[in-house]
């Protein structure tokens, strides 16, 4: 183990990292784990966080592993968004990773950092919430595995290190959509993931940015389960509109807990949640739904209709083509 009075510690194993973390805490020092630093470094600079010890995880190679078992995928805490972008084993996750920040942020930001920061509309966490992921941690009390939702709801354990997340291998189509300010510079205001399992006949939908953590849309999921023709994995176009309405209603019921951002009033978030969910649902199950019809169903005199106009954020723009990244209509020139 390499000790240094400078406050920077660089363990090479998970065991060492956990030991350093508890030793620092026992000595009464404020300690922070460091993944890529995209959240921590600007926060230190701005004085939002004060720490005396930093435990850099860059050299812990066992955290950088991305693995696949017979029916599960395991992603180490040190894996970056860029590592996930090209991952063919989980196209849904790859898609969520691809719309995080900029190339600079995707090359640097890690899975462990996303769990440590636990942003309400984190792209990764919204997707993983829909995918029923589990979080693996190690603390002086030993290793622990818990559902992501429980991990996020609990108070963070200050002496625990996230080592990996684990999710089922995909059993059907999945998609991820987000909306907010300029993607390269700001995390999403509202995000939505839909994960379809054609083997188990289930559909999961999570919406981020409408609570302290991404929320599962339980009523809409139950409706979908009944509405989908599982033999073909498709739905009618009316089902997408109904699905969107159910998500809007569920989000409305959460109004008191909605986070308030500079751009996102509660009303805006509720509306955006329904629109994103309807689109994500249709993309997974009915790509043939006529675009103008969908736009007409989903965009009646919207309060922020300019934000949600099909030409800035719709299936018929090059930006929203599934093969391209800027689903919220931002490019280098910024949509707004």
């Amino acid at each position: 183990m390499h000790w240094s009075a400078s406050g920077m510690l660089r363990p090479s194993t998970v065991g060492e990292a956990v030991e350093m973390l508890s030793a620092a805490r026992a000595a009464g020092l404020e300690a922070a784990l460091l993944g890529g630093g995209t959240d921590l470094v600007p926060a230190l600079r701005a004085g939002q966080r004060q720490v005396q010890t930093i435990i850099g995880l860059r050299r812990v190679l066992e955290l950088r592993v991305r693995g696949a078992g017979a029916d599960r995928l395991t992603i180490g805490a040190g894996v970056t968004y860029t590592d996930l972008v090209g991952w063919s084993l989980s196209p849904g996750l790859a898609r969520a990773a691809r719309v995080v920040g900029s190339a600079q942020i995707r090359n640097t930001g890690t899975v462990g950092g996303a769990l440590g920061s636990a942003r309400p509309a984190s792209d990764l966490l919204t997707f993983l919430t829909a995918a029923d992921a589990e979080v693996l941690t190690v603390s002086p009390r030993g290793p622990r595995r818990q559902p992501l939702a429980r991990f996020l709801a609990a108070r963070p354990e200050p002496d625990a290190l996230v080592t990996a997340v684990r999710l089922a291998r995909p059993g059907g189509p999945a998609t991820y959509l987000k909306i907010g300010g300029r993607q390269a510079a700001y995390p999403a205001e509202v995000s939505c993931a839909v994960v379809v399992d054609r083997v188990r006949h289930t559909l999961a939908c999570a919406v981020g940015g409408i609570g302290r953590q991404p929320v599962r849309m339980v009523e809409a999921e139950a409706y979908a389960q009944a509405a989908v023709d599982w033999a073909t994995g498709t739905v009618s176009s009316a089902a997408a509109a109904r699905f969107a309405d159910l998500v809007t209603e569920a989000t409305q019921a959460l109004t008191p807990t909605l986070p308030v951002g500079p751009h996102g009033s509660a009303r805006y978030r509720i509306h955006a949640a329904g629109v994103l969910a309807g689109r994500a649902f249709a993309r997974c199950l009915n790509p043939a739904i006529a675009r103008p019809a969908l736009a007409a169903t989903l965009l009646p005199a919207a309060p922020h209709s300019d934000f949600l106009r099909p030409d800035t954020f719709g299936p018929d723009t090059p930006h929203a083509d599934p093969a391209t990244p800027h689903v919220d209509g931002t490019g280098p020139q910024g949509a707004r």
Partner: protein
Amino acid sequence: MSGSEAGSNAGPEPPRPLGAEAEAEAEAAAEAGGLALYRLNVDGFLRTVSGAWLGDSLLTVLRDRLGVTAVKDACEQGRCGACSVLIDGRLAASCTVLAADADGTRVVTVAGLGASGLARAIQARFLSEGAVQCGFCTPGFVVAVTELLTRRPDADDQEIREALAGNLCRCTGYGRIVAAIRAVQQERGILPIGGEDDVEWHP
């Protein structure tokens, strides 16, 4: 800095000779003061950093401690790309990287790209195509474009936009920057004949 300086005379200062003795002394002093001491490989030179604050970003250390002004400092929040560097070959915003954590990596700024013909060609085209106005964003763009064209020499318009989304330019409106990249591709025989229509960027 203008594009033309970047390759030639903006190189790093020669590494200061630091004997084992002096180094041990510096280390002891730094440890005593609780200040960081580490080494950074910047543009191929090993530089010793002492007396830096634990929380200093790579950007701060490069500019304020090592005098490497080839990286520009603007937002310090990871949002503008002015401070872009390569870390072990990957594009990163140096203001979001902890300097002490970059010990053991290879950091390359625009000044360290100079030897590669590609970086020179990019800088030349930035100038000839009018992609440099105030020039503040240029070092970051040149690093990002060099990384992109090394990885994807035939990047199309969408890929270029995606790869450069993290670099802001307040002057050019980006059209000239994309034109410069297209010109580099053309010059290298990568852009297909008839691809000239793509050179003008209509957002």
